[in-house]
């Protein structure tokens, strides 16, 4: 479902070439649930953006649902769903229901299917109470559920989530996780998410991709990841070890930030 071969992206920052992602090769089969981990600035978001067609790769080859994302962006948009934890895809001043209706029209989802999907999502994500509320007045947990709904109205084969649980309380987090697990097991939707919350990884994912300094540092199961540091009790410690080890190795490319003057966020 997702194929990356030698995928790379460079940015020129003050006339210096910075490799945000280099030589990334992996495959994700249909129906998999994969987490993409890595320290801040490792290249996770850059990778996600190349998979979704937002960024054009500078080297290598990528296919998602059989399409080249940057060249067939609009066609791909109909086959995948994308959720950004840190920004909404909904219309700030419109009630959630109107935002979803607009998404329906943009994705050309027919009315009957829309109604069925919305009913189902209302059930699973408990949207009923705030469908009429303008998006700007929603709590983060409600907004995230709204965003997930918007990303799934057109029943995509792949769902890509960039830090979907960031800032959510324990209950909202559990609801979102339960929903994603169900989506993956019952509908067979392929899910790829980035996260810093290892609870997401332990509870949801069978497979972990660890990106560091723009390269693939680990690709395997959660158990496999644990086995890299047998002495460690929790998965947190294992990952912290890996991150710290990478921090002490000298970085060939300096801070792989896309642009020097952009507001900082988690990459």
């Amino acid at each position, binding site marked *: 479902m997702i194929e990356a071969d030698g995928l790379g992206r460079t*940015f020129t920052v003050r006339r210096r070439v910075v490799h945000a992602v280099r030589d990334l090769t992996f495959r994700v089969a249909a129906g998999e649930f994969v987490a993409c981990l890595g320290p801040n*600035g490792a290249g996770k*978001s*850059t990778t996600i*953006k190349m998979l*979704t*067609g*937002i*960024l*054009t790769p500078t080297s290598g080859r990528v296919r998602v649902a059989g399409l080249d994302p*940057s060249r067939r*962006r*609009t*066609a791909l*948009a*109909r086959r*995948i769903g*994308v959720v*950004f934890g*840190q*920004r*909404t*895809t909904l*219309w*700030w*001043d*419109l009630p959630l229901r*109107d935002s979803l209706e*607009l998404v329906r*029209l*943009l*994705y*050309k989802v027919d009315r009957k299917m829309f109604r069925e999907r919305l009913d189902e999502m209302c059930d699973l994500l408990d949207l009923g109470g705030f469908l009429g509320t*303008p998006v700007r007045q929603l709590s983060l947990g409600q907004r995230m559920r709204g965003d997930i709904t918007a990303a799934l109205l057109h029943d995509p084969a792949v769902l890509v989530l*960039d830090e979907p649980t960031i800032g959510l309380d324990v209950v909202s987090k559990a609801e979102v996780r339960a929903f994603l697990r169900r989506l993956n097991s019952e509908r067979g939707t392929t899910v790829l998410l980035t996260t810093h919350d290892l609870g997401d990884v332990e509870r949801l994912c069978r497979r972990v991709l660890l990106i560091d300094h723009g390269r693939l540092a680990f690709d395997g199961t959660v158990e496999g990841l644990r086995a890299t540091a047998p002495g460690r009790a929790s998965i947190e410690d294992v990952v912290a070890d890996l991150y710290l080890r990478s921090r002490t190795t000298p970085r060939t490319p300096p801070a792989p*930030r*896309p*642009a020097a*003057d*952009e*507001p*900082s*966020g*988690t*990459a």
Partner: protein
Amino acid sequence: MIRTYALLAWAWTRAAAQYRVSFALMTAGAFVIGGLDIAVIWIIFANTGSLAGFGLTEVMFLYGASELAFALADLLFGSVDRISQQIRAGTLDVMLIRPASPWVQMATDRFTPHRIGRAVQAGTVLGIGLARLDIPLTRAWMVPVMVVSGIVIFAALFTLGGALQFLLTDATEVASAFTYGGAMLNQYPLSVYDARIVRGLTFVLPLAFVNWQPGLYVLGRPDPLGLPSWTGLLSPAAALALAAVAALAWRAGIRRYRSTGS
């Protein structure tokens, strides 16, 4: 594309209508500013009677044609040159994951119908000018053609301004110098300016094809710089050429897009 445009423009209009007082004030403000522009022209004529050899009605016609084209282009596509704000806010990422052209999404972003105020005012001036000029139908057909060409030329300039911002962050002001600045230049007969400026506006930045060259044709006047009278008929060709350049620049810009950190 038109369907997407209408959908999104309607959504933004509903969103803007949520803030009623602001909506009403903006609409009133647009009329006041347009009125002041006309006042300036009236004041000039109260003192001189003619401008570079053009009488008041002719100037009203030239002013009205350019302003109408600009006001409609600004209403429909003006937000394209505010793309650096979208880049910094990360909202361009959101536009790129939707199955719709980011250009259409940019053009409709924060669409507010109140900007129609300036177009109504410009259309009125154009109408008064034309009514008093008594132009034969054999040349009057050029008037709608020049307004549409003008809309395309200004829309292409807005797009070029937007494309430039993929290279230079915060180039909105540079872009405005050409779009809003161009509209200001076109408010007067171009012959009031130095010949070098007029040549630049004809052959480099084809603003002369918005109202000056086709306007001379409609008025049946010779070009003060000696270009043949059929030059005015080239407006649609100039508009399409500039639109093609703008489309290529926009595509190149999207492919060079760097996104933000997160």
